[in-house]
């Protein structure tokens, strides 16, 4: 297990380094300097600007500086908003995006698992049918479409909920639902199919034979084992939710990190792009790493090698 964690850890560092390098060279492969658009005809100003952002140095030196910036986590000032450092932007935007993400995951997992379990228990019944129809629809409608439709209907025509910003729990409902529906649908489908499989296993029959309450069988025995596939897709789901926050924050005018990221892309604000890309990918890759470890802890077959003959 320790060996596995160490191996995964080095993999993680390598991936972060790769994406950081990729970002750096991509940004520097764009012809011209970021200040071209300012139309500063005065070459001295341009030179001073480049000196300030250390863009006058040779590329390898810049690369080393950049790696240093990553390790010390200091990405310097933004180009378009010179009074603001990238760190400031991240510190201001990230908590909001994080809140949105966490609430989304909670909503998606809780309702997805409930829906999937109900569908599996009423296999081929009306609840199963409705839940799976909802799941296929939920997977098919892109989150940004859902978000705009929600605004049009619930904020516009019905006027029940606020259409934008991030102030009260009431403001959180629409963005969270728009972002959570897709993952919820995926989780519901997965939970259903793995619950159907688990419920036919001998140890469930055993639990029944012992006379355990159905609720206890489902929660303690079935669901616990049926959760494994969901842990597996947690990583890709997190990535989906994270990129989802870009559009959702834009649509609902939420001042999170995704908004700054998208802005920095259209402004070509390189320090912000590089800073947030590295931050995002490190965060995501670290989450994948955690998911892997959790999976290893949850699934005894990974730890015990071939000792237990349950499935191999």
């Amino acid at each position, binding site marked *: 297990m320790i060996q596995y964690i160490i191996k995964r850890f080095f993999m993680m560092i390598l991936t972060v380094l790769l994406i950081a390098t990729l970002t750096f060279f991509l*940004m520097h492969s764009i012809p011209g300097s970021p200040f071209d658009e300012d139309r500063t005809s005065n070459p001295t100003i341009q030179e001073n600007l480049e000196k300030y952002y250390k863009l006058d140095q040779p590329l390898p030196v810049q690369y080393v500086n950049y790696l240093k910036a990553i390790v010390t986590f200091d990405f310097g000032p933004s180009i378009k908003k010179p009074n603001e450092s990238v760190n400031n932007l991240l510190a201001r935007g990230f908590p909001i995006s994080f809140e949105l993400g966490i609430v989304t995951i909670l909503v998606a997992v809780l309702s997805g698992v409930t829906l999937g379990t109900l569908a599996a228990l009423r296999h081929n019944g009306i609840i199963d049918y409705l839940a799976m129809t909802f799941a*296929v629809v939920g997977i098919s*409608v892109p989150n940004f*479409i859902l978000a*705009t439709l929600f605004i049009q209907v619930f904020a516009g025509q019905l006027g029940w909920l606020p259409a934008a910003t991030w102030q009260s729990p009431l403001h959180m409902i629409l963005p969270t639902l728009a972002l959570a529906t897709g993952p919820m649908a995926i989780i519901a489908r997965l939970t259903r199919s793995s619950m159907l499989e688990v419920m036919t296993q001998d140890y469930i029959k055993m639990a029944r034979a012992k006379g355990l309450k159905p609720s206890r069988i489902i929660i303690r025995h079935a669901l616990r084992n049926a959760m494994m596939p969901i842990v597996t897709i947690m990583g890709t789901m997190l990535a989906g939710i994270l990129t989802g926050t870009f559009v959702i924050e834009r649509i609902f005018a939420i001042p999170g990190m995704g908004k700054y990221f998208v802005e920095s*892309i259209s402004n070509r604000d390189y320090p912000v*792009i590089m800073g947030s890309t590295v931050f995002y990918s490190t965060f*995501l*890759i670290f989450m994948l790493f955690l998911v892997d470890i959790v999976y290893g802890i949850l699934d005894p077959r990974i730890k015990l090698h071939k000792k237990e003959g349950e499935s191999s």
Partner: protein
Amino acid sequence: MTNMKDVEIKDEWFTPKSKNMVKAEMVVRPSLSYWADAWRKLRKNKLAMSGLLFLMLLAIMAIFVPIFSPYLVTATDYPNQNKAPSMMHWFGTDDAGRDVFTRTWYGARISLFVGWMAALIDFFIGIIYGGISGYKGGKVDLMMMRIIEVLYGLPHLLVVILLMVVMDRSLTTIIIALTITGWVGMARIVRGQVLQIKNYEFVTASKSFGAKTSRIIRKNLLPNTMGPIIVQMTLTVPSAIFAEAFLSFLGLGIQTPFASWGVMANDALPVILSGDWWRLFFPALFISLTMFAFNVLGDGLQDALDPKQGG
């Protein structure tokens, strides 16, 4: 078993059925190839078939509507801006008086093109990479899988966004950006399949007859890995369509006046509270229906192409 004595034994019971001997040995059901069987199973799945039908109609409309429409996709008509659906403009017009009906089908073209191109390129790279990795095995496989593992850890859409920032914003760029990270999933599936199948007896038999490696890959391995590969392709298409719409929606993909469903939804964003519902509704409807159709078709194919599932 009881009262054996009561049963009268008749002589005609023992007359041989000589005439029917040949027929008795015959297989009643016609022998079906893998593909014929899959098609038979798929045809029974009504949802998957309606998905397939919808996609075929979508493709036909996407090809012909922009050709025969009296309006150009990019043609502006300012006196007629933001008009509700009418006989003149079936899906209404946008804020520059462009015909939403024509634009919707032009968007379908873009979506289907991006989806299929991404899936096809993923398919070729994936088959070659995964095939070599799985067939060679050993050190080659180990090295190739290490590369894949690192690539798999990259946040997919983030890389695509980065590439879109750097390269000029065109359809080709979107496809390149999508496939640069997209082939990894396909390669993993092909490798897994090849790894499993290459040890089966029929491959050994083929080898013992002296078949060349290229023949084994073409005739034995690839046909037997096709099922999961096709399923993966039908799932790649909707995710590529989603990615294109997502990028265009963020302003990183296709740009107005050209139309894609993502662009149209993005352009409709400022007016969603004003009651001009058609500008969002039609692109939203078609992108959702298309994704739905691909998803149900993919599900159906998954069941149909699995030889272990009867029915």
